[in-house]
């Protein structure tokens, strides 16, 4: 209280007439908001601890609870907003870097929402996606410049290693440690079931999940946690993580508290020790060093796995991507400004990087201008929220999209953005065994499968409307997009015309 007091962001509103004092909310809230007042035989709430994860709301059997915005306000100020002011109070109280999680919540333009998709009328027919064949199979990987023939004259069909996806959606890298065992299990199951891949993130691969190798991308990040030969060989592809959209230019830091038992074994570091990923790979200070890392990984795996290089979308992304395309990498993954994270410095998350739509458009065009678009495939993420986003991204030039936050939402995440506290009430971003147990991996997998199935149907519907029956004919098909309310420069970068043109 006093000068340090920051008024709660939310109010816990309980309908006392409905409340049966069952104390479910108390059990469900790992933040200790709810308590039972024996004397007065009623529930109380310490709303200052509430993060609005909606867990108690979802589990209250009589639907007695609502979490609402606290009406208490500062004097209106469009410049000094309440969050800015509160952040100053926090830093005045403790000299720390502000830490946040999930993607940037700031109100910057979401270009996907300002792009509209075409449909066929008269001059060519739309196609009925429910009945006619609609193809969403995607191959990721390098394509050679020229065909080759065998001595008998037939086509030599040998290609560098490729990834085959049943639909243009993968799961983004989320490390075991930042998310729970059950989350990985659900992702692995869903990836196998739907014919796509999940991504280990930088925390290594739990021994239980080696069996899902054909549907796994194993990540190699600057901390090299859990990276060893078996790990590299376990996956279908290897991803070198140079950066991520939520925190370009920043490494990672999993606090020792989360490095317990299995996490320690998987990451191959002692229990309780901090897991620190440096900002750069200390063997890559320049583009030619990247080539060295790409090829060292290819050598280690006998050129059997495609190598992905994941970068954050930053200002110079087109040139960076061009460099990567020439580094021997098979696939470039670009993560946009709004990409999610388990923990990132707030200032970085909210102020560094560029939106994925612009980055993607610039990269795709640049690679085409240089005639090397076929050297690499493009995966984009950060943030892909709907099937329409996927369609727009593919039409801008992406080969596939990766989803992280959307996948977590499917598993129950309520976007309370408190992953960095490790007390995720939904059993996702936590290692607390009691909380982890809340997420049933079978149910979570089913929900992920539902989501991908539904999106794939919607992608087909949108494609059918455009008269396109195979995803490859949508890729880079910018004529199918129009901007609304975008200025000339934005349209130029996106390479699309304005609606009405």
């Amino acid at each position: 209280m006093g000068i340090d007091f920051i008024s709660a962001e939310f109010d816990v509103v309980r309908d006392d007439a409905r409340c049966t004092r069952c104390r479910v909310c108390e059990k469900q809230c790992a933040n200790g908001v709810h308590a039972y007042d024996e004397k007065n035989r009623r529930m109380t709430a310490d709303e200052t601890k509430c993060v609005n994860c909606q867990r108690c709301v979802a589990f209250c059997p009589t639907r007695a609870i609502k979490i609402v915005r606290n009406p208490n306000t500062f004097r209106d100020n469009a410049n000094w907003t309440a969050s800015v002011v509160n952040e100053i109070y926090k830093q005045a109280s403790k000299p720390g870097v502000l830490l946040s999680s999930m993607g940037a919540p700031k109100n910057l333009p979401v270009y996907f929402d300002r792009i509209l998709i075409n449909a066929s009328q008269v001059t060519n027919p739309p196609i009925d996606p429910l009945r006619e064949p609609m193809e969403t199979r995607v191959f990721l990987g390098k394509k050679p410049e020229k065909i080759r023939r065998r001595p008998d004259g037939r086509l030599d069909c040998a290609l560098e290693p490729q990834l085959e996806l049943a639909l243009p959606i993968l799961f983004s890298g989320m490390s075991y440690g930042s998310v729970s065992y059950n989350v990985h299990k659900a992702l692995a199951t869903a990836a196998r079931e739907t014919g796509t891949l999940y991504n280990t993130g930088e925390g290594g691969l739990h021994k239980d999940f080696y069996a899902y190798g054909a549907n796994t991308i194993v990540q190699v990040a600057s901390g090299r946690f859990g990276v060893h030969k078996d790990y590299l060989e376990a996956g279908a592809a290897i991803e070198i993580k140079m950066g991520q959209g939520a925190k370009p230019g920043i490494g990672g830091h999993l606090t020792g508290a989360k490095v317990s038992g299995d996490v320690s074994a998987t990451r191959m570091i002692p229990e309780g020790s901090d897991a620190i990923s440096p900002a750069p790979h200390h063997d890559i200070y320049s583009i030619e060093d990247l080539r060295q890392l790409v090829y060292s990984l290819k050598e280690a795996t006998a050129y059997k796995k495609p190598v992905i290089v994941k970068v954050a979308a930053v200002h110079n992304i087109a040139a960076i991507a061009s460099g990567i395309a020439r580094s021997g990498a098979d696939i470039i993954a670009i993560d946009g400004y709004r990409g999610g994270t388990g923990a990132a410095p707030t200032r970085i998350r909210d102020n560094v990087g560029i939106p994925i739509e612009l980055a993607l458009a610039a990269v795709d065009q640049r690679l085409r201008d240089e005639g090397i678009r076929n050297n690499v495939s493009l995966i984009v993420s950060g943030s892909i929220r709907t099937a329409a986003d996927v369609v727009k991204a593919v039409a801008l030039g992406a080969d596939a999209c990766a989803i992280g936050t959307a996948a977590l939402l499917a598993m129950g995440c309520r976007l309370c953005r408190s992953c960095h506290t490790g007390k995720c009430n939904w059993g996702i971003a936590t290692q607390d065994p009691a909380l982890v147990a809340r997420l049933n991996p079978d149910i979570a997998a089913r929900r992920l499968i539902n989501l991908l199935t539904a999106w794939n149907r919607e992608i087909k519907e949108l494609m059918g409307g455009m008269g396109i029956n195979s995803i490859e004919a949508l890729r880079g098909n910018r004529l199918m997009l129009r901007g609304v309310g975008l200025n000339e420069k934005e349209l130029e970068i996106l390479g699309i015309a304005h609606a009405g043109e």
Partner: protein
Amino acid sequence: MLQKEGQVRIPSGCAIAAVISKTGEKIGGEKIVAGIRTMHERSNGLGGGFAGYGIYPDYKDFYALHVFYDDNGARTDCENALKDLFEIVKAENIPTRKNPAIKDAPLIWRYFVAPLPSRVAAMQIDEREFVARAVTRINSTFRGAYIFSSGKNTGTFKAVGFPEEVADFYRLEDYAGYSWTAHGRYPTNTPGWWGGAHPFSLLDWSVVHNGEISSYDTNRRFIEMFGYKCHLKTDTEVITYIFDYLVRRQGMTLREASSVVAAPFWTTIARKPEEEQRELTYIRNMFSGLLITGPFSIVLGFSGGLLALNDRLKLRSMVVAEKGNTTYIASEEAAIRAMEPDLDSIRSPMGGEPVIVTVNKGVLEDGN
């Protein structure tokens, strides 16, 4: 002001027809006109055109350039550029006759040229690539000049009008060739521009097309990586470049190239023998940006043959018929019957099934 092709992409529907003698016999231009005329309903007078093969036997070793000029200034500029690259053995107006329906004719010239060997050698590319680049460069950098035909012993004739009027205008009956293609155009929203009519040609390739493809920008952006420039923003243009790229530059067979643009569905591929599965999967993966979706039926003309192809869903109709040594192709059977009432056989090829007809089984007298 309405924009023309190149400034804007204009969708159009159409009628196509083609005829070829498999023994290389000469067929007069009037024959193909009889066929395309019956499909008057399928065009709207905003574009018609023809391509004939084997029509310049006296100059068969020279590239025949057909050029539209806005004015004589454009012609002088372009001719200067041509002289720099080619030996011009003959330059002339293409003979035309007045037809009340054909208006606003540009200047229409024809040149028989041979690339200057020193220039070709200096660029270290083969002769055909040299000609292709020269055409691309002139069409993209010279205002008011447009080369619309550039093959050897072949020529494209096109204009704004119904195809039968265009044929009359160009005196098509004065030409005879071993094969012909024809097109009647139905563009949606344009006053029509001569250059935008079909066939679209590059070197000895010519394409006539019916339908509007939905993969256009994917195809365009892919092919433009390899030095092509889609000036006209038309389907025929991009389709011509795709075949040029796959066949001439990648060395694929016409059949393989057809499997790129009208690839079988994955479910269909899965039922093929293993070796074929591998090849088709490879082809779809390798050239995924060149898959064409949406309705199309095309006839691709080239030295010594024709290829007819429907989209893989067969959203446009096309019939192929035989009579003796002659093969007929058209959007409608009626057009074929107009060329030859008494046929030996007639059939509709399946979606994505290429029909390839060659003269003398592919052996041409000029060794092309």
